[in-house]
């Protein structure tokens, strides 16, 4: 069994077999993480560089832990304090790092398509840890893993994706993945934050009434309002957003059913999610984070360089 791809650039070019293989391997790694020794020697001869051209807490720690628990050697690169700040190009930076015998690259970049560009120029596997507003494949995989863990299977699952779809790579990867795995999706959020052709492109429904959407869904994946990616204001105020699309305890209690709340983090508390929901009993946000390590271990393990 092998993945059909050498890199993990996005969910878009994965097959359902790939996704199933990653998720089942992740389940094995989740078992490993419950043991007294939370570590296996699988990648002890592999060196991995984590290139973070953009800020990150969870993804970066999660990748680093995943690498260490597979016994890989890791080097970290953050753009501040590096020569990238002096104007070195991406390709130059990567080629310089690779000449020090690095076997794999994990990269986050603010430019959409940066890992795709890199994959055409370097010989080692690349894992996309988020590129601009394009994809964040490992987040979608860990979301899928967490949903599968809770509901058994993804087929037929009703998932609402709520909020800033326009700037969200998490939404993109989630839509690709859930569609491939046969889940149903409704997108909701302010019209200014939902791309115009999304219904045709992804074959998903768009509904602007939050309560209707919540009543329909099994899972609400609530996205972060990405203030750093908005050059012009797309809604009048955070307070207004919270009133129209924020998830609070009151609206959940009015549904007459339980729905599961997910969020890729970091949460803007009091904007897209109120604290009593984020920390409430229906939230699986911290399970998502826990599963992230196992899912990333699976991806690294399956993509690690092979001789033939």
């Amino acid at each position, binding site marked *: 069994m092998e993945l059909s791809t050498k890199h993990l650039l996005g969910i878009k070019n994965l097959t359902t077999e790939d996704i199933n293989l990653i998720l089942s391997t992740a389940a094995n790694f989740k078992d490993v993480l419950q043991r*007294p*020794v939370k570590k*296996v020697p*699988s990648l002890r001869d592999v060196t991995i560089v984590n290139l973070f051209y953009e800020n990150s807490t969870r993804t970066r720690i999660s990748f680093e832990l995943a690498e260490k628990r597979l016994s890989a050697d890791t080097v970290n690169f953050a753009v501040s304090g590096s020569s990238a700040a002096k104007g070195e190009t991406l390709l130059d930076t990567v080629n310089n790092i690779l000449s020090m015998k690095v076997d794999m690259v994990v990269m986050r970049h603010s430019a959409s398509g940066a890992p795709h560009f890199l994959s055409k120029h370097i010989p080692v596997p690349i894992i996309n840890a988020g590129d601009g507003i394009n994809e964040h494949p490992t987040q979608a995989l860990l979301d899928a893993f967490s949903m599968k863990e809770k509901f058994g299977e993804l087929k037929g699952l009703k998932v609402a994706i709520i909020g800033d779809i326009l700037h969200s790579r998490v939404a993109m990867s989630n839509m690709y993945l859930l569609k491939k795995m046969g889940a149903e999706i409704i997108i909701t959020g302010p019209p200014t934050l939902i791309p115009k052709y999304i219904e045709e492109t992804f074959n998903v429904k768009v509904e602007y009434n939050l309560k209707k959407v919540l009543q329909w869904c099994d899972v609400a994946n609530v996205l972060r309002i990405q203030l750093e990616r908005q050059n012009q204001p797309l809604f009048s105020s955070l307070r207004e957003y919270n009133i129209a699309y924020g998830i609070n305890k009151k609206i959940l209690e009015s549904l007459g059913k339980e729905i599961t709340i997910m969020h890729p983090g970091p949460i803007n508390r009091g904007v897209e999610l109120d604290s009593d929901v984020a920390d409430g009993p229906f939230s699986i946000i911290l399970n998502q984070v826990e599963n992230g390590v196992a899912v990333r271990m699976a991806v690294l393990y399956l993509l690690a360089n092979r001789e033939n």
Partner: protein
Amino acid sequence: MIPCNFSKNFLVKTILSQSQMALTVKRLAHQIMETHVPFTDTVIIGIQPRGVLFSDKIVAELKTLIAPAQLLYGKLDITFYRDDIRKELHVANKTDIHFSIENKNVIIVDDVLYTGRTIRAALDALLDFGRPKKVELCVLIDRRFSREFPIQSNYTGRAIDTFVSEKVKVNWGENEEVVLV
């Protein structure tokens, strides 16, 4: 030209027949019992995936000799501990060890002992679960003189001499037998 079908059938050699296999399992279970009676500090660990098919038989036999509740039986997957993952990717199976192996006599059970690399990996994997008092090995087939590590079995079903080009196939289920191809 040599007719292909003829040569293929001709080259399949039975090592253990169905009735011999049943007797071998019985004998090995009794040998394990003999050494470990009253079985208070001994646990059985089958190696995933194929060793488990054999350890299931051993455990079933042991359960006729001692109280079933007394027998601790686990399964160990060694995929992530292999030394050849850079050559070939194996699909992982479930590890299920629901008890502590600390200070226990552990009997590792596998179907075929060949290069010893699987058992080497199994020892690594096992030690991540604790520090056993002693580790022993029980195999159905020992392919002698082909070891790449200094590893030998304590309980052996049948020791055979083979060529590298040959393959030992252990079949369970309806047509239980061991054949050399």
